[in-house]
């Protein structure tokens, strides 16, 4: 077997050294009746070619995002990733290293994390960022728990325009912590409404920016109202490219910023693995969940990096830890950092501009079609349209013509009948003008 180096001869010699006759003697502590007599009821080992054939067959039953006009976003975006990124993250020194517990032989990972933390702090407009969370949604749950630690209050107000699956994750993450989670209805709330909901028990308000439906709102007034009462504003950004075009959450007064970093450096991969971004203000640094990398010096005075402030973490604080998180999204953050370094300030802003320009162009094209109403007045690269028909049915009809038109809101809001004709449409730099024209023609046809 190609992955197992021991030969039968080796095994015999080693058993002899150990002083047993048979390998099963080493499994003596296993209850006799439970030790399997034969192999599991699963296929026997396969050659590389056979494995590849199996996976090619799986792949052939899917439609790849890049192979057709494709307009789905809603928290995961089809962007182009430069080839350098994938080469670097497959270097064995990065790919096959563990968490950097031995800093003297992990400076590659540690310095990259330090660069990552700096990049995330810069784009979110915050003081500090951690070394990543599992993804944006779990980071959002952690933000709710952190706001409680900071404010010692238990009520979390969730905007109705927050990604509905993020809402579900926050509710689950706090299900047994006796927090009180208030969730607003989708698409109707105003900033005023949120301000009016703040009371003494409130720990934070969580909003999305741009929001789930694509709108860009200025939350400065909300931030001020919260800060006046010593509450926190948590801002969630699921399309991190947007922050190359719009004001940073820090500028509008966020105290905790949560982001999904997938758009930079990471493929769609059916929902994971992604990279959760988590940033905050300096004064809350000891309440951060997850790993942190910090600068220090070695015994000879040379600059180096270590994991630090680990007393917040589960392996030391155990039940009093800020979070039970252990693993982060190491390799995904590396991809993020390399892609962001390739972009630089200039490329990041240009990428954002191209995304926005494309969305504006498609909006203009769609606005002329009978049977479509564009619901957004503001947006970055994603907006919602209301059709004159059930959006899920329209999307399925277009699949037949090899067009993936967007996300019918009803998939995530099956009970909200008022949203059943609404379609969320995303555009990225990978969307060509031809793609847009095909979508327009197909929609014209089906909405006739």
């Amino acid at each position: 077997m190609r992955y197992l180096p021991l030969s039968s001869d080796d095994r015999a010699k080693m058993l002899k050294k150990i002083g047993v006759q048979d390998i099963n003697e080493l499994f003596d502590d296993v209850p006799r009746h439970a030790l399997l007599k034969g192999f599991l009821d699963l296929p026997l080992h396969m050659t590389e070619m056979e494995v590849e054939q199996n996976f090619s067959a799986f792949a052939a039953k899917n439609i790849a995002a890049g192979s057709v006009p494709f307009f789905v976003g809603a928290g995961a975006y089809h962007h182009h990733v430069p080839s350098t990124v994938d080469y670097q993250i497959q270097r064995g020194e990065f790919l096959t290293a563990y968490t950097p517990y031995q800093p003297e032989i992990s400076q590659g990972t540690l310095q990259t994390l330090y660069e990552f933390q700096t990049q995330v702090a810069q784009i979110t407009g915050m003081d500090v960022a951690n070394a990543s969370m599992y993804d944006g949604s779990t980071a959002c749950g952690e933000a709710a728990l952190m706001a409680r630690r900071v404010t010692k209050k238990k009520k979390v107000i969730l905007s109705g325009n927050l990604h509905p699956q993020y809402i579900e994750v926050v509710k689950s993450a706090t299900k047994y912590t006796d927090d009180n989670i208030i969730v607003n209805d989708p698409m109707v709330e105003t900033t005023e409404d949120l301000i009016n909901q703040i009371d003494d028990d409130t720990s934070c308000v969580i909003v999305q920016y741009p929001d789930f439906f694509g709108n860009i709102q200025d939350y400065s007034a909300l931030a001020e109202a919260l800060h006046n009462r010593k509450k926190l504003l948590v801002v969630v950004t699921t399309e991190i490219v947007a922050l190359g075009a719009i004001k940073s959450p820090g500028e509008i007064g966020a105290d905790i910023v949560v982001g999904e970093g997938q758009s930079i450096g990471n493929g769609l991969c059916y929902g994971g693995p992604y990279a959760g971004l988590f940033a905050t203000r300096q004064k809350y640094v000891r309440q951060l969940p997850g790993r942190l990398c910090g600068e220090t010096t070695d015994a000879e005075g040379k600059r180096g990096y270590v994991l630090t402030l680990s007393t917040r973490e589960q392996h030391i604080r155990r039940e009093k830890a800020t979070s039970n998180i252990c693993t982060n999204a190491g390799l995904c953050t590396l991809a993020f950092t390399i892609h962001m370094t390739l972009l630089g300030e200039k490329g990041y802003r240009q990428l954002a501009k191209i995304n926005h320009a494309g969305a504006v162009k498609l909006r203009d094209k769609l606005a002329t079609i009978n049977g479509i109403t564009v619901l957004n007045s503001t947006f970055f690269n994603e907006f919602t349209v209301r059709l004159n028909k059930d959006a899920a049915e329209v999307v399925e009809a277009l699949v037949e013509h090899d067009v993936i038109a967007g996300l019918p809101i009803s998939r995530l809001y099956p009970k909200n009948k008022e949203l059943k004709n609404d379609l969320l449409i995303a555009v990225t730099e990978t969307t060509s003008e031809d793609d847009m024209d095909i979508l327009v023609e197909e929609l014209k046809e089906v909405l006739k």
Partner: protein
Amino acid sequence: MMNNQGRPTNTSSVKNVSNIYETFTGSQGLSQAEGLIYEIGDTERTGVDFKEVNDFKSALGGMERTNEIGLAGLTEPEVMRHYTRLSRKNFAIDLGLYPLGSCTMKHNPRLNEKMARLSGLGDIHPLQPISTTQGALDLIDTLAHWLKTMTGMPAVAMSPKAGAHGELCGLMTIRAALEAKGDARSIVLAPESAHGTNPATASLCGYRVKPIPATEDGRVDLEAMKEALGPDVAAIMVTNPNTCGLFEREIIEIADAVHAVGGYFYCDGANFNAIVGKVRPGDLGVDAMHINLHKTFSTPHGGGGPGAGPVVLSEALAPFAPMPYVIAGEENFELIEHDPTGKSFGRMTAFHGQMGMFIRALSYMMSHGADGLAKVAEDSVLNANYVLASLKDIMSASFEGPCMHEALFDDRFLKDTGISTLDFAKAMIDEGYHPMTMYFPLVVHGAMLIEPTESESKQSVDQFIGMMRHLVEKAKAGEIERFTGAPHFAPLKRLDETGAARNPVLRWRANEGEE
């Protein structure tokens, strides 16, 4: 004697000059110094070409970002060199035996990487129409089948994103099941040797942890556990094989006892590598267990993630599992994203879990097959016991063997040498190895937990053993500087962790150098 190009070709003129002068660059040959991107690059440089955009009317609603972000950019050749240089400052499995106990650092086949990048797998969107992702659902269902078969459990929740996330999922499922009976309870039992994630997880589920002591032979004290049991105990969390590298031989008694008081048996599956294909946790009375795909099934650790932690569940717990799940219908696969029964406790994450890790893990499983998986367990246990047998005369083994896939030693053999477990570990770095897990588990003093894994050859393990014996001899011979000054040959010497924690510098700033 000169050759005909006038260049000396032997080494007789070379003196030993290492470490006697500083180089201009700070590099030492192939060990190259490398600054931060912020010191090398600037905000004008970029490594990506984009088309220009024609003028258009913005729809940002007056929220344009006008200030400079400060992101440093580099051109492509510079990026390539920067990260390649950094990569060479890392130890990795590809470079050598990585005996980090409880972490299962085994070979990462590149076939798995290739499969995860196939078009149609790596580039599909989690929310594109379900009719266009039938292959993805088939793959998830197939992996679920393998996991259920290997564990002998009837159900699996696939979405948890790491081991600790899986633990949380498992314990929340247990709580939801207890609440459905109107009896949430308040206590979770966990052995003293448990991973730190266990108490942290229990606390997130609103449970208080009561620690259970270990017996002299490193296992759960069954009598003490029985005494701690009562109608208020929701579950016991036991790692098996445990963190001392031992199989809990009274596991069935443990399961029976907790079931007798109406509690559940949560098994931390971090060490599943030792028993895969040999014994099924479902046959041991386990109700829920997470499986670290990044340990047993070799998805790469990537410098700290991403992981994946599916949780296998008993029949009684399955209805309370989180969304989403896949159902194989007569013709198609269905993806259930909204709970039709109202029993599910909710959702662990947006979308459907770590698909990229599912692909790699399934590729690994198919490559091994039922026959190879049993060999994985056997060879990992064999390698660990071989290490134990070859070192126990000279180091202090904490428990009599046999061990499972990892061997635990403590620092008794270093008594009176003036050398600590940490010093010993750092000296291993000079020998070209990553140190073993140290100071964990907490139940022995100065713990050294060695997990060679099955992907090491006998030559490799023999060299490791020879190296360890050599270091022990040097330690006992009083060569203290070899240890207390170690590592001598790493890119950096020991780092000041106290300074880092007292004055945390967590990001680069433009004016940092001027302080």
